[in-house]
């Protein structure tokens, strides 16, 4: 019972902050998807042919995957400043809470932000004339993607010492994944060796699953297993990193 209360308390803190900034959050999250949809959907997309439907239909699941990745990751990175600069993380370390509750509460808050942002993209995409088939599994994959990248953001916040290095995670990890993991084009076009590497990354499997489910084509349960394994592994590692702060 206390564990649930602890999770709620950690989530409550982020919810209070999000509520206060909700309008700004929504407006700022509309900019990037709008640009992607206009540039790649309307502009470039009209000259691209894909096997099923329009390029816009092909593109929207990819944008959902990369946007939910970015938002979930970046929503949790302020924990880094709480740890290194403001030291407000000590408030949680001193409190008699169940330690994984901190990880779960923070990840859930980041998932919420990722989902709000995804909902905005869906609305915009429908306005742009995209066709997407929604299902509970589609939503589950989206949630799983948010969980994985929130956990990776949490890990970065626990392990990295400076703001500069936090920025490097975006540059060297998230940015390449944004473009290479089947978001804007099919990975089948890539050389085999590159494709093997790309298929080790979680965003690739999110893109495969969302695109398959969104366009009504077959999906691989292996991709779902890969995402589940990432989520579990990063959660365990995150809990461990949090407990190691006392060293």
């Amino acid at each position, binding site marked *: 019972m*206390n564990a649930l*209360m*602890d999770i709620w*308390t950690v989530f*409550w*803190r982020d919810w*209070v*902050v999000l509520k206060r900034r909700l309008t700004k959050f929504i407006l700022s999250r509309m900019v990037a998807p709008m640009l992607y949809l206009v540039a790649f959907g309307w502009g470039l997309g009209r000259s691209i042919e894909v096997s099923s439907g329009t390029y816009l239909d092909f593109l929207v699941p990819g944008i959902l995957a990369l946007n939910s990745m970015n938002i979930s990751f970046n929503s949790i990175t*302020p924990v880094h400043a*709480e740890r290194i600069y*403001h*030291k*407000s993380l*000590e*408030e*949680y*370390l*001193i*409190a*008699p*809470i169940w330690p994984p509750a901190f990880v779960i509460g923070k990840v859930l808050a980041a998932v919420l932000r990722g989902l709000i942002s995804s909902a905005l993209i869906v609305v915009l995409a429908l306005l742009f004339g995209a066709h997407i088939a929604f299902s509970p599994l589609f939503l589950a994959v989206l949630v799983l993607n948010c969980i994985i990248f929130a956990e990776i953001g949490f890990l970065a916040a626990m392990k990295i010492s400076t703001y500069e290095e936090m920025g490097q995670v975006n540059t060297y990890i998230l940015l390449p994944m944004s473009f290479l993991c089947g978001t804007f084009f099919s990975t089948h076009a890539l050389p085999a060796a590159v494709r093997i590497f790309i298929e080790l990354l979680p965003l690739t499997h999110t893109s495969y699953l969302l695109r398959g489910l969104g366009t009504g084509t077959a999906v691989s349960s292996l991709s779902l297993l890969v995402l589940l394994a990432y989520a579990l592994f990063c959660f365990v590692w995150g809990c461990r990193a949090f407990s190691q702060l*006392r*060293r």
Partner: protein
Amino acid sequence: MQPMMELEALTKRFRHKDPEGKAAWKTAVDGLTLSVERGEVFGLLGPNGAGKTTTIRMLTLLMEPTSGRILYDGREAAAHAQAVKQIIGVVPQHVNFDQDLTVRENLELHARLHHMDRAAREARIRQLLDYVGMKRRLLIVRALIHRPRVLFLDEPTVALDPQVRRRIWSLVRKMKAAGVTVFLTTHYIEEAEALCDRVAMLAGGHLVDLDTPAHFCEKMGLSTLEDVFLALTGKKVTP
């Protein structure tokens, strides 16, 4: 009676780089052994780098000791971390409020983290907010929300004007009168003299001596605790 806290050979070593850039170990606290009685105001004095804050961080479970033991009420702190965290309140040296929350939300977060129900936390926040006005005092208010039995104050009056300092002293005395054990570190010798029942002098991570302020002066033939402090910590202590 069982002491409130016992420190047994408490040691903390940090890995760092020496001036030549080679990995080396620095001993911040070296075999510290002492006990703090129930309801006493206990002061930890020492120059910069003596190990005061590291000691408090270990006692408040923010940092694991390299070796040694900490006992609360005779029970090992490491094995009963949740129980220990329920009875301690901590006023850190730095102002570590959550920058994204209001003062009231910060206090509410603290109360929630200590599992206080809505009625209890609202009543307690209302009661304690009477004290406030400045961030430092707010840190103290936050540490008191869940009615701790042991209160840690790490340099509680550093950079405060004399009036505010006196108000914090008065609060510490009220805590003692209410039976709270207080463990404080300070640079201000007169503060330790005015507040503490017993004082431990720390230098280079070592416990140099431990006694009541009056007994320190008496046994060393000095008139103030400041003279005692200088005489004891001014000596070169070999780590």
